[in-house]
Structure formats: C-alpha cells, structure tokens
C-alpha cells in the first residue's frame, strides 16, 4: 500500500510539475529585473516604435539585455563582461547577459520561437553575412532601428558600403556595425623570406614550401574567404556581384580560380586530398611549425598572439597587392525580443569612440566609426602603436575588397567541394 502511494505521489509530482510549469509560462513573458515588455502585442510594438531615445533610456533602466553570440573568443568574452557590461551598468543601469551560442543554434531557436509566435530571451545578436540575410528574409529581426541611435547619426558613415551592405545584401537599418575585419596573411619571418604579393607568386611559394601550406576545408569561413580572395586574383570579381547568378553561371565565372586551386593542390599540406578541419586547427598548425603560412580575418590577431607568446616575435603580416577581402560584423535585434529599448541603448553604447577604441586597444579589433566624423580628441583615442607585425589601418582599408553576395558563398563552397577536393 505504501509503495503504491509512493509511486503515485512520484508520478503525480512529475505530472504536476509538467502542467504547473506550463501554466506559469504560457504567457511567455521573460520578466527582467523590473520591467516587462511584450513585443508581440499591438500596444507593445507601437510603444517601441514610437519611443524617442530618451524614452528608451528610461525604459531600459534596471533591465537585463541579453547578447547572443559565439563564445569561443576568450578575450572578447572578457572584454564584453568587464569593459562593455560595466559601462552599460554604470551609465544606464543595464545588466548585460552574455550568452555563448553558435549562430546556427541562435537561428534555430529564434526561428522556432518566431514561428510559434512567442517572445524569447534573445535581445542582441552578433551576426553578419548569410546568417543575417536568412534572418532578415524570414522576418526574424526587429528594424529598421539604426537611424534612431544617436551615435549612429554622430559617428557612422551611412553611405559607406561597409555599413550599407552586408555581403552585398542591403542592411536597411536592421543591424548596427560592431567591428571590422579584413584578411591578412601571416608568416614567420625567421623561417620564410618571401611575401607573395599575388596568386602567381603564391603558387611559387607553395611549390617552394611544399607540404607546409594549406587552407582549411570549406565551408569553414576562413577557408571560404581564401578561395574568394583567389577568385578576386584570377577572375572578374565584379561579375560576381550579382546575387541572382545560378550555380552554373558562377561555375563559369570562377573557372580560372578553380583551375588555379587544382594546380595548387599537389603542393598543399594534404596534397589536395584532405584539408585542415577548421581555421583554428590551421592556426595551431602554423603555431607549431607544421605550416609556414597562415591567414586570418582578424587583421591584428597575430599581434595579440605575439604578445601572448603563442607566436614568436618574428611573425609578420602582409596582404596581396590587389587587396584582401574585408567585412563588417554587426549586432542585430531579435524580432521577439522583450527588451528592444534596452538593446538599442546597449548598441548605441557600442558605437561610442570610447568603446570602439577600447575594443581596438584590448582586442585589436578594427573600429567601425567614420574617421572624418571624429573630433581631434577622439581621433587620438585610436592612434595606437600596434607593433611591427601590424599593417597600418589606412593601408589595410585602401586595399579592401568587398565580400561577395551572401547567397553566392554557399554556392562557391559547393563548387569547391565538387571540383577541387581530391582533384
């Protein structure tokens, strides 16, 4: 008898907690530290759309704002937790909740929630490229909002292609710039004396250092950008700026690049049959000396690595004469965020010279502000000596190539997998 009661109790407990939780959360409002804001009802939407920035500051006080993005960059995490979050708390009484999550999972979660018509915990999202396009096209983002941010007006050049377009796709105010990135090539000056300045020289370089040069397998995004850089070197890049190209049309245009890569294959680390699994893997191989050549989107990443001791002091960076691809990464706001006011205030803060300069200083990430719009005092904040290995900002930016349309990137990756691997 006792046993039966016990088991009934346990089952009942389970069922109870099932339903009880169901009741308290059907309204699905995420209560923040004081204020709630249901975004999906009519009144809510009108509220945030009609607010002035000052009203947003008021509404955001004492609330929590979540920032979802990749959590594998330890220094960035530290900066966000210690510098950025601290500033938000002190200036606006906003608590930042940094959530480490891969962008694919963020997309999964957001799309599931938006479809179900519920609010969600995601406020700010670190995003760009194909993922941004996917979110915007599927109505998963709130916007346009950037023109309502005072610092956007004040410090950003809205006409710059770096700001207006994200992988060739119009931003239209749905995401705010966060940091800039541009590909640089990396070698150890003590081991290697050449600095290939174009594709032809690079092929010679690979021949000379046979087996010690590689790029990661696509669709890793570093491998992907390497291929796109080669495309710029060997094909008519401008022809690819059309987002409506079919796979076969793309294949035709990039044929010279594919031929080049196949020619390059036998001199690579995996002889073209296998490629390093990821960007980080390849970086470790370079650090260990298994590879003599590396490349990264983080233009000043190698500078930081030298400071850490991960790279020897003799490491140098360089770019091709024709330039390297650069992009901007952004912050967007989730359509079903319950704290859009807080998100906008927080994003606005990210656009201050103080934050952008600090990010440059601590993380060596390129700032997104328009130099012309800065006062002389503010300009001083960005004058940093980054060391011998760094390429000066103006040189980088003068040789900067745009990214290809977002939709073409997976197509190029597919063609690479079909026509280059193992050939």
């Amino acid at each position: 008898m006792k046993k039966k009661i016990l088991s009934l109790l346990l089952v009942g407990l389970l069922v109870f907690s099932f339903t009880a939780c169901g009741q308290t959360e059907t309204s699905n409002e995420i209560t923040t530290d004081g204020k709630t804001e249901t975004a999906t009802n009519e009144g809510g939407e009108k509220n945030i759309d009609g607010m002035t920035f000052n009203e947003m500051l008021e509404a955001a006080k004492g609330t929590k704002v979540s920032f979802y993005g990749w959590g594998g960059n330890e220094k960035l995490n530290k900066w966000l937790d210690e510098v950025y979050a601290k500033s938000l708390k002190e200036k606006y009484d906003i608590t930042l909740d940094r959530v480490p999550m891969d962008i694919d999972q963020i997309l999964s979660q957001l799309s599931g929630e938006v479809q179900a018509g519920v609010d969600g915990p995601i406020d700010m999202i670190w995003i760009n490229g194909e993922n941004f396009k996917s979110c915007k096209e599927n109505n998963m983002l709130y916007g346009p909002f950037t023109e309502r941010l005072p610092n956007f007006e004040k410090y950003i050049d809205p006409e710059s292609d770096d700001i207006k377009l994200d992988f060739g796709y119009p931003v239209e105010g749905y995401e705010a710039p966060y940091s800039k990135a541009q590909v640089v090539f990396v070698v150890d000056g003590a081991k290697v004396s050449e600095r290939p300045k174009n594709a032809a020289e690079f092929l010679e370089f690979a021949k000379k250092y046979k087996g010690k040069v590689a790029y990661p397998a696509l669709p890793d995004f570093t491998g992907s950008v390497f291929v796109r850089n080669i495309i710029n070197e060997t094909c008519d890049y401008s022809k690819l700026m059309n987002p409506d190209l079919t796979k076969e049309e793309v294949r035709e245009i990039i044929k010279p690049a594919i031929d080049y890569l196949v020619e390059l294959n036998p001199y690579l680390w995996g002889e073209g049959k296998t490629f390093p699994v990821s960007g980080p893997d390849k970086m470790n191989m370079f650090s260990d000396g298994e590879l003599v050549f590396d490349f990264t989107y983080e233009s000043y990443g190698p500078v930081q690595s030298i400071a850490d001791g991960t790279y020897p002091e003799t490491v140098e960076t360089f770019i091709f004469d024709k330039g390297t691809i650069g992009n901007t990464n952004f912050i967007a706001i989730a359509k079903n965020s319950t704290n859009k006011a807080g998100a906008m205030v927080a994003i606005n803060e990210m656009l201050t010279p103080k934050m952008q300069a600090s990010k440059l200083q601590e993380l060596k990430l390129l700032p997104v502000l328009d130099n012309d719009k800065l006062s002389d005092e503010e300009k001083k904040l960005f004058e940093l000596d980054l060391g011998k290995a760094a390429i000066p900002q103006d040189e980088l930016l003068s040789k900067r190539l745009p990214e290809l349309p977002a939709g073409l990137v997976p197509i190029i990756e597919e063609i690479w997998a079909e026509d280059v691997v193992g050939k």
Partner: protein
Amino acid sequence: MSKKLYSRFLKPLFIILIFFPLLTIFVWSFIERWEWPSLVPTVFSNRAMNVIFRNKQDFFKLIGSGILISGMVALLSVITSTMAARAFVFYEVKYKNLINFLSLLPFMVPATVFGMGIQSIFIKWGLNNSILGVVIAHLIYSQPYAFQLMLAGTESIGRTYEELARSLGANAWQAFYKISLPMLMPVILASASMAFVVSFGQYFLTLIVGGGQVKTFAIVMVPYIQSGERNIAAIYSLFFLIILFIINHLLNYVGKKVEEKIYKG
C-alpha cells in the same frame, strides 16, 4: 595467461593507456607554444589558469548550476529506472521486449533530430528556456544507461529475498526498503553516476532546449574547445574531469552513508 604477465605488464599498460592522454591535456593547460620537433614545450604560461579564474564568482556559479541540473537528472533517473526495473522483475508486464527495446531508443536518435523535435514541443508547453525542460531532455538521454543498469541489478538480486521477508511478516515497503534497497545501492550509485556524467556533458541539447538561458559548465567549455586555443580548451577539460571525479566520490560516500543508515535503523 600467466598471472605474472598480467600483473607486471598488462595492468600497468591499461593504466598508462588511460592516463597518458589525460596527462597530455594536463600539460597543455600550461603551454602557449610547442614547436616542432621539440619534446619539451617552447613557451609556458599560466594564461589559461588566469582565464578560468578570471571571475571566480561566475565560475563557481556555473559549476553549481551544472551540478544542480545534472544532480536532478541523476536523482530522477534513478527513481524512474528503479521503478521501471521493479515493474519488469516483480510483475507481469505485457510487451516487456518492446519496452526494453524502446529504452535503447535514445542511442539511436541523433541529438539534432531530437533537439529540433523537442524544441517545438517545449515551446508549446512553455518549457523552453527553463531548467525543468533541460532536466527532462537530459533525463531522456541518461535513461538508457540508468535503466539497463537498474534492470541488470534488480534481476540479479531477484524477488526471493523480498518474498522471504514478506513470508516472515514484513510488509511490502519494509521488504523493499530493508532488503532490496541496500542490496541495490551499488547499482543505484552506478546509475546515478552514469546519468550524472551523461547529463553534465550535454552541450547541444542544453543549448537548444535551454535557449541559452540555462547555463551549464559544458556550454561554456565547448566553444573554447572549438576555438583552437589549446591551453584554454585543456584547462576547461581538466576542470570538467575533476568535477566529475569529485562528484563520483561524493556519490559513493553518500551511498555508503545511506546504506549504513538503512542497516542501523
């Protein structure tokens, strides 16, 4: 197989095979660069140590949250499995083979498939982004281990002892509590331990069901391992293993105390 060969050669071999890889992880926690072809690391640093202890409060909160969730999973796993195993061994149940087979189902269903399905269900029930949702999802994946263990354990002990006790006048609950439970204790601990381990290491499932709002140690650890910074990856892995090691011993200790209590009282 001579006893000497076994104890002088094989035993140490097994131990080396297990510990050598873990040693490399331990060593890598303190390395910044290790150039070819040196057998000694080129640059040492305690950068990774500083990283993990950057914010002690948050760090321990994270561990605590992971332990809490996995602890609940372990507890519920044991209760569910003990009940189910008991049903199998002590009673007539139709479709035993089917139920047994279905208990192995979590092994067959890839995490992405399950994750996507459970996410939409939980959104409807309002369980997404909640600790309870994460516990339930973890429970499903810990269950096969716990159930198989409890089934084997309950079967091997069998009904005889309890039936004997009943015939001597004990009631059903006393028979279970005083006779079977102490004998089941080792298997219960093993089940709890397994369930805890499987839950503590869950990454994908916690993210998709927890929506980023339920933070566990695994969630913070995995991106660092993917990031390629080997020393940070190594030190997080090290702490992961240390935590599980401690929990395992704690469980054993608790189990012994419980056994003693039952025998005394």
